């Protein structure tokens, strides 16, 4: 049900520049284009809820090459957190598990079907309700901190991937080439003008 989006940077492909990147960076980035590591943190049940959640949070198209949930799973398995947590939240992995269980139970309460099986508009209404709760606790968690957790992990996965960069005109790594043309409306040959903006 993902909307068809206008392509504002037709022909722009950040990863096509990989030969111009240093080895350490190329390794880190190109790995994201390959198969994700096996799931280690989420249970299959959590995985199904997380996939549906991230599909809605980022409006992912069915053939989207970014495996957002696999990337979140590997961060949680490796405890690669942001290095802090809110006092009123459990550590990140547990917070994901608890909040995914919360979505599942909300879905069962309201629609008598698991979250992952719901149609996208119903999933959106459940997610949107969490966002609008304000300071009211949701399954024992503060909803604004849950929202921050979800969006931080989901956006890091999606906008850390060349597919996400192509859509926003960001060329990705720039070492050792750097940039020569600075200033408003100045572009390098490898940057493409926005054809759908202004």
């Amino acid at each position, binding site marked *: 049900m993902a909307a068809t989006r206008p392509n504002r940077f037709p022909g722009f492909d950040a990863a096509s520049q990989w030969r111009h990147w240093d080895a350490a960076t190329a390794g*880190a980035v190109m790995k994201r284009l390959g198969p994700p590591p096996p799931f280690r943190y989420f249970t299959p049940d959590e995985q199904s809820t997380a996939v549906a959640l991230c599909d809605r949070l980022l409006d992912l198209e069915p053939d989207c090459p970014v495996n957002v949930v696999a990337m979140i799973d590997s961060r949680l398995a490796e405890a690669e957190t*942001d290095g802090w947590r809110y006092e009123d939240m459990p550590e990140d992995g547990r917070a994901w598990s608890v909040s995914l269980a919360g979505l599942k139970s909300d879905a069962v309460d309201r629609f008598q079907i698991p979250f992952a099986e719901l149609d996208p508009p119903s999933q959106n209404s459940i997610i949107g309700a969490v966002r609008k709760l304000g300071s009211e606790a949701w399954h024992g968690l503060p909803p604004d901190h849950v929202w921050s957790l979800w969006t931080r992990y989901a956006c890091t996965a*999606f906008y850390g991937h060349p597919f996400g960069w192509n859509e*926003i005109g960001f060329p990705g790594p720039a*070492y050792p080439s750097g940039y020569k043309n600075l200033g408003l409306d100045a572009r390098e040959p490898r940057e493409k003008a926005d054809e759908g*903006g202004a």
Partner: protein
Amino acid sequence: MSGVRDRNASAWLLPNDGTRTNHRLRRDMRRFEDSDEVDAVVVGCGAGGSVMLQRLARRGWHVVGFDAGPFWDPDTDWVSDEAGSHHLYWTEPRVISGSDPVPMGSNNSGRGVGGSMVHFAGYAPRFHPSDFRTLSQDGVGADWPIRYEALRPYYTEIEQELPVAGDFWPWGDPHPYPHRPHRVSGNGEVFLRGAEKMGITAKVGPVAIPNGRFGNRPHCIYRGFCLQGCKVNAKASPLITHVPDALAHGAEIRADCMVTRVEVDEHTGLATGVHYIKDGRRRFQRARIVIVAGYSIETPRLLLNSASKRFPEGLCNDFDQVGRYLMVQGAPQTAGRFDEEVRMYKAPPPEVMSEDFYETDPGKPYRRGFAIQTVSPLPITWAEHVAAQGHWGADLRERMSDYVHWACLGALCEFLPSAENRVTLSRETDRNGLPVADFSYSQTDNDKMLMKAARGVMEEILHAAGAADVITIGRYAHLVGGARMAADERHGVVDSDCRTFAVRNLYIADGSVLPTQGSANPALTIMAVAARAADRLTG
């Protein structure tokens, strides 16, 4: 600049063959035994610690610097990529609390030789003379036990050693910089244009990125990844500005060693060395003097974790001062949309700055002020901005695709020190079984007024520059304080020479000692304070 090389040859000790690390210097580094009583150990090789180490080594002292993190090699360890740079941060657990908890995110402190400056943005302004006496002048905050004049020569020294590039600086104590200002990108152009329209003075710099080659450090290539570590060796960090010279003068750096406790002899009341963990083994390094420089969270945590019979509430904590008066700056960021392509990811994020609003304005209901600077979030951080406006789903994707049209400014608001903003020990422990830090923060009304005022000015500047839409996100930056400098032990932890009141041979030489923070980015001041403390220590 030959004067710099004579007193700190770091930039000339780096390779000039396109690689970034002098491996021979590290391999041939002097190594001490745990049983050697070295002249000093320094805990933490960041902004303050590395300057200390280099200064003491230059004076012929036998010194060992410990760092919990790795001895970085920019070629192999750092990437020109946002998501791949997590390992630069201190990702051991920390808890945040209070009425305005401070999420750290990629704003988190660093872990590894070079400290947080490895991924700092690079702004290097001085504090203003007024920052040293906000209590007597404005009736808020605290007075330092030293005046600005005591730091002036050290500011000049460090500005030459980093070195700093920028326009002549008209604010505070007016002064020039050793390097000419850099050219600016779209984001800087927007700021300059908007400021000019409004009659606000804005200047290019000051940034710790030389404009030109410096020693064997190449010119900046304007690739915009300063907050991910500079793979070019252009942006300053102690890893390249102070550590090489320290090693060349016989200092040892023990990386991947977490110091767990400072030992104090019950009878003499003197520090005798530090306990640390290397490869899972507990060890003890003897030392004549102990200098702690682990950042405003880890320094108080280490003191609190070093409780003993003599110091039941934590080392140097007889008067309940350790961990208190921790400060962050309110750092709201306001972005504006332009028809032109701004492409703010190009060039170093720190470009242009204004200190027109730094001092107390008697016409305003709040005391002290704020600075305004360019900041240039990369896509992941930018997504946080957009998501914070409540956008998600298709809406988020669509707004994100507009990235190249946005320019972004950030303010640094001087939040006032408060005893209640502090580090304590949490019940949670790290993998070594040590209690982690709980960092509690609450804002005052003055703080909130400053945030609002700064936001208003940033919106006006962006509108004046031609922005149609503006959005703002609340943020924080730059932790300092937590073991502050004061006139006596009832008001702080260290004296004006960074020596702890409680233990005669224990010093603190990092951002923890700052009693106020001004609206300036703190690294230059931290280094200047450490350089002065080293001078006082060695006489």
